């Protein structure tokens, strides 16, 4: 169903695990009570795989991305778990080791990065600057490499001499993507890469990313709040809510058989373009304030299945945090209503 899936699930599981997050927890020390922006997240990304991370504002997905690259700055810090890249834990590595790792093994396209380009420097010079910060090469070679990269993302080489404001939003975003690919990383993290762009440009960027991914075979962690994008582009999708991972599944399984009420609610939030038109319900309420999150299952205040009439279940939902359990191959859910495959 998903246009992009070319390999079978079985074949993919044989690929090496590139990145593994094990019970990752990140806290922000703000005010008297620290805020758990990320709480016990387990996630795996294999070589060449596109993994989508979806969630609404404040769910912690950008924090996860920053934790992978170890670019969290105080008051944020990792308080638990590990970030394993090819088996090595990045938490606790020295600045020098991390510097060599960043951009070379894992790179990132930040949110609104296209607005982060220096307006008074030519694009080519910024490219060269960035490359020379990571490798000892001459400016001439850096510019030549930059020209090649621009061509790779479908921009005329001569645009190296342009200033950022002379390029359209979509082109600037492609420049940023090209910069992220400069050192041929194995994993690219895209944090809301198309949010500020128009729908047609968004489609062009997505196509570009897919083409590049097929050609260069890097893995992608695609972070967005737009689940419909992921359903089209990703191999596997992980859903985050209030700092926790609530469901992970291959894209087609998620679309067909989402188990977590939040995922179901999210899928219910996209009006269809074709087919019958029915009243949608969305999800009532709003994402919780992480300084004072709901007890037990963090989704329970908004969950249609949390009602006091079933008192035993209600007590569990409000008191006990549900654990991520695998209900079928590759499909995990953290919900009291779904218990390890059995009813």
């Amino acid at each position, binding site marked *: 169903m998903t246009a992009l899936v070319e390999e079978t699930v079985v074949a993919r599981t044989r690929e090496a695990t590139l990145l593994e997050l094990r019970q990752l927890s990140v806290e922000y020390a703000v005010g008297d009570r620290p805020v758990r922006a990320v709480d016990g997240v387990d996630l795996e990304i294999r070589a060449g795989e596109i993994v989508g991370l979806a969630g609404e504002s404040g769910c912690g997905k950008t924090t996860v991305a920053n934790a992978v690259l170890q670019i969290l700055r105080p008051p944020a810090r990792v308080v638990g778990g590990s970030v394993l890249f090819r088996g090595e834990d990045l938490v606790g590595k020295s600045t020098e080791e991390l510097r060599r790792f960043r951009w070379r093994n894992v790179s990132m396209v930040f949110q609104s990065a296209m607005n982060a380009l220096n307006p008074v420097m030519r694009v080519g010079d910024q490219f060269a600057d960035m490359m020379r910060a990571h490798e000892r090469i001459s400016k001439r070679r850096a510019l030549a490499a930059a020209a090649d990269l621009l061509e790779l993302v479908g921009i005329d080489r001569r645009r190296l001499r342009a200033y950022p404001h002379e390029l359209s939003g979509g082109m600037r975003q492609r420049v940023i993507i090209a910069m992220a690919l400069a050192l041929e990383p194995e994993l690219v993290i895209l944090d809301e890469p198309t949010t500020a762009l128009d729908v047609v440009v968004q*489609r062009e960027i997505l196509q570009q990313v897919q083409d590049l991914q097929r050609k260069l075979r890097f893995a992608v962690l695609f972070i967005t709040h737009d689940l419909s994008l992921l359903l089209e582009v990703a191999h596997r999708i992980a859903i985050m809510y209030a700092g926790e991972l609530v469901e992970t599944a291959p894209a087609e399984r998620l679309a067909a058989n989402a188990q977590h009420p939040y995922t179901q609610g999210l899928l219910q939030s996209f009006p269809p373009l074709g087919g019958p038109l029915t009243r949608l319900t969305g999800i009532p309420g709003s994402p919780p304030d992480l300084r004072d999150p709901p007890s037990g299952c963090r989704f329970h205040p908004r969950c249609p299945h949390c009602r006091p009439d079933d008192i035993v279940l209600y007590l569990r939902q409000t008191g006990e945090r549900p654990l991520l359990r695998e209900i079928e191959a590759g499909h995990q859910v953290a919900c009291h209503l779904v218990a390890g495959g059995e009813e």
Partner: protein
Amino acid sequence: MSAAAPLEVRDLTKRFPVGNALRRAHVHAVDDVSFELRPGTITALVGESGSGKSTVARLLARLYDPSEGAVLFEGSDVSRVRRRRDVLRYRSKVQIIFQDPFGSLNPVKTIRHHVERPLRIHRIVPRAQVEEHAHELLRTVGLVPAEEVAAKYPHELSGGQRQRVAIARALAVEPKVVLADEPTSMLDVSIRIGILNLMLKLKEEREIAFLYVTHDLASARYVADDILVMYAGQIVERGPVEQVLAEPLHPYTRLLLAAVPDPAKKAERIEPRKGLAAAAVDPPDGCRFLTRCPLAIDVCSRITPPLVEAQPAQSARCHVTAPST
């Protein structure tokens, strides 16, 4: 059926000057736009950034003055009225909701202030009843308990809640027309439906004429009855929403449809071509979609296509799919 259209727009044009005194040029942000808004209907105005759709909304809200054309409200042209009394009367019937929930509320004023001000300015209810009426408005938009919410400041509310406050503020004057300028694009996905459903409810219960400005075709389909598609300042297609989305005439509409993420169908590849949806500076004659159009023929570069009704109730601005005979 319903009475005459409360708001009618005729040949609306807005040009913004660019450049300096030596080389004065103009951006044709809105060019020759005509449509009407009928009570109890939602009309979607769809386009990408720079297409002019927000400018249209602001022109109708009289936050800008048009360069040419007329805005007819209940028969008379309001676009050039100057007398405060007349302007105030217009503002009591036509309201606007902005895109940014974080920017459309004054950060140093309470919610009560925002909702009560229109009530006081337009003397909607006697002074003694203003507070209770304001609470009632908050309840109408789903913000309860109203007394608690009224005492809060904008930064204490979430984006969705702020947008509901903006809607309550717009409803305070009991408007006939509400211009919603991308009211959900800055909100979380799960909250958007709530706002859209609120619009549908208000349209049905209060017979308000909505103009729903958006770049999201799917939400336009969900709420709107009619759709207007804008490109580079012009309307390029119009008609009932189901009809236009099922059988789009204009190549740009088709491009938009192909670009929207839809997990239900297999993704079509679109070819990137040069050209922007944004309004151009002093555009020459000819179709503005020319550089991106797969159907372009010779006449497209010379003559600006007029809006032609090629199907019943559906018009498009294209020499190929909606030729003027």
